[in-house]
């Protein structure tokens, strides 16, 4: 565990000097939390529940299930905010990819991997350190932006009950369970791809494809094709646990010291 922490500290010391990484970790979450708040602010009191109902193609029963105790304008505002949950799921998937991609391919470019592998550190320790160094800031940024988002909603929404509803099990599952799991998926993919490519950008771009299924969810919800509710979140979490376990296994298997040392030029 101590060596994993050593790796994490080194990674942070190094990657946070990179402006692109810094912007991704701080700027993106800020942007994602400000946009919905600004939208609520600009639509203050003008959220039409019937209009939203038509636009989202949702039945009244489904809406009431999502809104819980909220009624009228409150429910309309909550439904609008709810559409932004996908952004909070995208965030932990996007942010660590940039960090992880730089962290493995960066070693390759600076030729530091050979001295690093010559130390008595296990492959699992090395990859765990690198993965956690990417996951922790992403998850913390996601949590941070969620609290900014809730604070903003509390100030600008039609009633404090709207912000309180953001602490419903659906949101809590999304932010505190699915988000970190998605983050791990992104990192595992980035580690796997980084072990095979020679450019951080290539690793980043390939791993960015992970955003596609999340975007598909977003679009599906937007066009009323699916309702992201509590049960749906739990299914996604269960699926992600399986996917993450598989990806982590393959990430360790694909990180072959000898191949990396002898074929990386």
């Amino acid at each position, binding site marked *: 565990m*101590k*060596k994993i922490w*050593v790796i994490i500290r*080194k990674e942070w*010391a*190094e990657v946070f*000097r*990179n402006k692109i990484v810094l912007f991704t970790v701080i700027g993106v979450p800020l942007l994602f939390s400000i946009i919905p708040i600004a939208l609520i602010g600009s639509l203050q009191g003008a959220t039409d529940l019937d209009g939203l109902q038509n636009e989202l193609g949702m039945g009244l029963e489904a809406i009431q299930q999502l809104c819980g105790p909220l009624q009228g304008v409150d429910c309309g505002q909550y439904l609008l905010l709810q559409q932004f949950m996908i952004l909070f799921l995208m965030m932990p998937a996007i942010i660590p990819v940039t960090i992880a991609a730089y962290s493995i391919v960066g070693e390759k470019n*600076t*030729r*530091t*991997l*050979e*001295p*690093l*592998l*010559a*130390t*008595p*550190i*296990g492959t699992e320790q090395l990859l765990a350190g690198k993965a956690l160094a990417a996951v922790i800031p992403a998850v913390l940024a996601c949590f941070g932006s969620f609290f900014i988002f809730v604070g903003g909603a509390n100030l600008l929404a039609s009633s404090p009950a709207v912000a309180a509803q953001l602490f419903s099990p659906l949101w809590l599952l999304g932010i505190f369970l699915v988000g970190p799991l998605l983050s791990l998926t992104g990192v595992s993919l980035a580690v796997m791809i980084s072990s095979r490519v020679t450019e951080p950008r290539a690793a980043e771009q390939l791993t960015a494809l992970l955003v596609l299924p999340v975007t598909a969810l977003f679009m599906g919800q937007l066009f009323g094709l699916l309702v992201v509710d509590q049960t749906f979140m739990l299914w996604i979490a269960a699926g992600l646990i399986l996917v993450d376990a598989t990806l982590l296994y393959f990430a360790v*298997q*694909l990180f*072959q*010291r*000898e*191949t990396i*040392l*002898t074929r990386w030029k």
Partner: protein
Amino acid sequence: MKPVLDTRRISIFLAITFGIAWLTALVVYLTGGTVDSPVLFTVAGTSVSLALVLIATVYMWSPAIANILTRTITREGWKDSGLRLPLGERRWWTWALAWVLPAALTLLGALLYFLVFPQHYDPELLGFKAMVDAAIEAQGQQPIPLDIWTLLLVQLGQGVLLSPIVNSLFAFGEEFGWRAYLQDKLMPLGFRKAMLLLGAIWGVWHAPVIAMGHNYGFGYPGAPWTGILAMTWFSIAAGVIFGWLTLRGRSVWPAVIAHGAINGIAGINVLFLHPEAQPNPLLGPLPVGIIAALPWTLLAAYLFWRSDKDAADVSRETNPPPTRKPTRGTMIAAENLSKQFDTVTAVDGLDVEIPAGEVFGLLGPNGAGKTTTIRMLSALIAPSRGHAWVAGHHIGEEDALIRKDVGILTETPGMYEQLSAQRNLSFFAELYEVPRVDKQVERYLRMLGLWGRRNDPVGTFSKGMRQKLAIARALLHEPKVLFLDEPTSGLDPEASRMVREFISDLKAEGRTIILSTHNLDEADRLCDRIAVLRGRLLALDTPTNLRRELFGRSVVFHLAKAKATFAKALARLPFVHEVEAVDNKLVVKLDDPEKRNPQLVAELVGLGAQIQFVGEMRQSLEDVYLQLVEAGGTA
């Protein structure tokens, strides 16, 4: 350390195998599947359809084609083709097992199936009788004057004795791909994982033909998915047995025989089936049914359980145990140490013993195996063959301990450029679990004159400073052995001298240092002994002895004026090998100058020569090196 999984070649092989097979299946499907496939011709009353031809040839041969294409595309060569016939190696029992085991397991499976479903068993063999009668009628021949049980015994005997050979042609197409190629490539995962993965891949590869009714037909519950699963199950069990035969037989041929045998005998169980029985093909009686496959599964489980012992036996045979242990006081010992990269032998049979406190030089042209040797000895890459011990730890068994005890200066001094010198060193010190990190980092930064720049990012350092920092990194944990891979490469003369002086200081401290360099003067000055490599060890000795062995010893006489008679007179002396006159100098080659020089001086003085200086002629290490490498290259 585990050998490397060659994922690139595995991916290419699988893409070709599945590409060819599944495309063939698509063609079969589009032309009527296995049921309505157009008949191409008829042999002895049996129709041969397009589906049968395509599946028996292209589909079943796709793994063999993939083997050939992958080796060709990736220029792998045929060194480990798996085709060798291990005759004379007393492996006849693997061949015998391959020949009879499938029949025994299949009949045992039939016995089990009919014990579970006794109502499906036909003691009068009515189904078989009807089949024989139909065949006789179709060919317009007379009935055979044998009872049905005798006929069954003939059929069985033929199935057991001849079918392994007859069916080998088709079985070879699969085995030459799966066992001879993919199994070998998956073995770095270990026998167990390799067998499970290979069996699963093999099973899934059958999916399209199973979906088109092969082995299980169509009407079974959950078709075709349950059929694909059952086939995968059988493939894993049979794959373990075929894989074990390949491993123990050191050749793919036993697996080919066994695969041919199962193909030939598989149908025998159906002959016992009552004509009115409606068996579930997922359960039997064909050996691909779960119940009938039970003997296969149990044997596979047993082989799986004992695979560690088999793998160890094979490993011992391919890499025999060391003949001796390193002697006391030896810091590094290598015995037959070798490394193969694909078709290239980077290091071939290196034998060396390096005592503690020695500075040992590795010389050789680019690609001679110096860096590979250092990487093997520092437990960064695994040897393909042979054994080595570093600081008392066996390579391949105690790699983590070796990494703790060695320091390595890599060919390029990779540093985290955005981090300070101090942060770079403290990071590595923490990974090496150095007790007092800050003190140790400060000690080496001061020792190498970098303390003043400790907070500057390494990206701002000169090449020499980076090299010094990399040396400090290699020394932070006070290793017992220090590997220096071209420490002065690319440095200016001043920085080179500084690094050399530092190495001299380390030598004075009694550290064991392995120095790989192209700088012959550096090796001459620093090394106690030198090994000249060119894939294999060309020479190993002290620099002085290397000179003597190659060039002998020579004495140079500087004369006030040389005359031809001087050289002739000296050449006549019995202990002189050769005399060469160059300007006013005489170069005399002889064995024992300490003893003979007074005689030579007396002879020359007697001839009236005026001797100005006398000294031993010293060949440069460059001459020695070039001679050795040229001779090694032409050997």
